[in-house]
């Protein structure tokens, strides 16, 4: 069959039946779980006397509440300890594989899935976390779900769900020096809006995306949900296959060759029909920084914070954001003082992110008023970074080098902002209160831009700090 998108092909292959309600019963190939959104789901199963249908298709890790300094059990935080203990018990009771804190594979669910080769092209993937869209980088259809739907997937390995439309986003050209995947997705969200993707899956492609590594594609797909799209994906190609090769859970030997044939066949047809198409000029993208309280409120680092136009629909939202941030309309974002710098999160905590930040940091010192943290996305990333000495580079510059987890992206562990602190952050959300202080302020940017802000103590154009020729 031709003219089909990857989304439609995957959707059709995983459709069990059309439910009497009209929704699709969609089979889920991989269910990833963590400690925050699952305890209630397991309790519901117990109270109904239902078993986990296919425990071998579920994989657990601990990430949200994991302390990054002292991981000894029991945790100092009793509530965190309770959640950890509940996940341990649930995995034990139902025979679910679990990368706990003693495992070499522990880390953020959206970092370890790909790293272990659990995430594969052509799969349907669900996880009780909105950033599940990350796994779409491999050409999977990956859906963020809530706890009752986690219960449904545990019980039946299926979701009741309505189909999605597909918007093709082509990023043309070539990214300039100091411009990263994070800047591309911030540009896309600024252009299409934080609700532009509601009802859609975003398919990313074009020359700039074709050239990207898997880490970069994951950054883009990760933030699809910030643009309102529950699903984001990139068609699988040679870059995908070479990443997959020799991963612990990837097909091995002859099966790998058969797998690549199938994965290739799942990519959107060259004449696929889309519900909408958008072209973004990759050559024109510059390093971006958010100035507001949602990820759509960003500007180029050399641009000014917008002025609310009286009468425009955005004026109220812009004023609310400026009030919360304490910023003046029309003033430059460059030079905005920061108190904290955070390199981490499921968006930007992979080895290449750490390398990009380290490249900027080398030979510099973190500004005296800034507290700077690097939180690798997984133990795998941590080990690989240490093997190439990145931890030394960061620590010599005055960064703290921490254990793997979600950390200051949402501050469910001890890492958080205090009062009205401003944080240069490589995470995904600048919502009010997101980093643990109800009045704390977040500026989203690439890991390299976070490194630059940490060194200068203020929002800085990373292009000025990069060695020439880099």
């Amino acid at each position, binding site marked *: 069959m031709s003219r089909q998108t990857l989304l439609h092909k995957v959707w059709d292959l995983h459709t069990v039946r059309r439910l009497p309600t009209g929704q699709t019963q969609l089979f889920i190939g991989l269910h990833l779980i963590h400690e925050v959104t699952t305890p209630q789901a397991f309790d519901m199963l117990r109270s109904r006397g239902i078993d986990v249908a296919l425990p071998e298709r579920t994989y657990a890790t601990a990430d949200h509440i994991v302390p990054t300094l002292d991981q000894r059990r029991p945790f100092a935080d009793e509530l965190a300890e309770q959640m950890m203990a509940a996940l341990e018990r649930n995995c034990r009771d139902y025979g679910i594989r679990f990368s706990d804190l003693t495992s070499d594979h522990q880390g953020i669910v959206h970092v370890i899935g790909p790293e272990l080769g659990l995430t594969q092209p052509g799969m349907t993937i669900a996880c009780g976390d909105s950033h599940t869209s990350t796994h779409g980088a491999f050409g999977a259809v990956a859906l963020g779900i809530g706890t009752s739907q986690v219960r449904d997937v545990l019980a039946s390995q299926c979701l009741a769900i309505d189909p999605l439309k597909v918007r093709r986003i082509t990023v043309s050209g070539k990214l300039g020096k100091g411009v990263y995947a994070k800047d591309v997705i911030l540009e896309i969200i600024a252009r299409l809006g934080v609700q532009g993707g509601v009802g859609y899956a975003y398919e990313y492609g074009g020359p700039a995306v074709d050239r990207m590594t898997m880490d970069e594609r994951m950054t883009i797909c990760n933030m699809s949900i910030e643009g309102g799209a529950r699903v984001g994906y990139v068609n699988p190609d040679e870059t995908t296959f070479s990443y997959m090769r020799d991963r612990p859970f990837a097909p091995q030997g002859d099966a790998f060759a058969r797998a690549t044939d*199938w994965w290739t066949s799942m990519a959107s047809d060259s004449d696929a029909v889309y519900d909408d198409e958008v072209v973004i000029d990759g050559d024109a993208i510059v390093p971006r920084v958010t100035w507001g309280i949602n990820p759509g409120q960003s500007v180029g680092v050399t641009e000014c914070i917008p002025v609310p136009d009286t009468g425009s629909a955005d004026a109220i939202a812009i004023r609310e954001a400026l009030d919360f941030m304490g910023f003046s309309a029309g003033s430059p974002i460059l030079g905005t003082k920061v108190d904290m710098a955070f390199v981490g999160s499921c968006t930007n905590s992979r080895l290449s992110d750490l390398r990009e930040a380290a490249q900027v940091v080398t030979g510099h010192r973190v500004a005296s008023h800034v507290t700077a943290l690097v939180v690798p996305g997984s133990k795998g990333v941590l080990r690989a970074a240490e093997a190439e000495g990145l931890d030394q580079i960061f620590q010599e510059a005055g960064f703290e080098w921490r254990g793997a987890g979600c950390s200051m992206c949402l501050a469910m562990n001890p890492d958080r902002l205090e009062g009205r602190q401003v944080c240069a952050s490589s995470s995904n959300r600048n919502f009010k209160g997101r980093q643990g202080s109800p009045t704390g302020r977040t500026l989203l940017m690439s890991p390299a831009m976070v490194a630059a802000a940490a060194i200068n103590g203020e929002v800085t154009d990373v292009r000025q700090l990069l060695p020439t020729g880099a």
Partner: protein
Amino acid sequence: MSTSKQMNQTRQIDRVEGTAIPLRGSNIDTDRIIPARFLKSITFEGLGEHAFEDDRQSIPNHPFANSAFRAASILLVNENFGSGSSREHAPQSLKRWGIRACVGESFSDIFKSNTLAIGLPCATATADDIEFLMAIAEQVPCTTMEFRVETLVLQAAERSVVLDMPRGTRESLLTGQWDATGLLLDRFNEVRTIAASLPYVKGF
């Protein structure tokens, strides 16, 4: 295999009647509905009292801090309500606060899934109609409104506002199959057949 009646918490939802609480503003995310620190629990209990905890402290006259709306059961919102995190804790906190239905200009996709999964009807209406409904609720908070799932109409102050929701959502509410577990288990042999047909399940 048990029947869906045993597997589900089945309850048909065809109407919600009550007063309304107007919450103005677009892109109100789930971190604002329930800040992450309240997710540190292995149950959903007690979430109702923390709905909009930080907004109630920082925004003057926040509707969720206004006693005139304390008995409200229909939440009126603007655009992209419930964006951000997939935390079901957000609709759970609204439901436990007393909300029984949401009407807004638009909602995020995951929030729509989560509200349906806990039997909290969520419908859209035009910006003009939302403005009309919000104005009534602000002027006369004790105005009773009636949300009818069957006809997709919100009756308020002798005006019928047209609502919209996906067909599958409406059917799920009307038939009591919004809790989908039983429905999804009904024909599990078909699930096994699909699983067995997938190359990655077969090991290529």
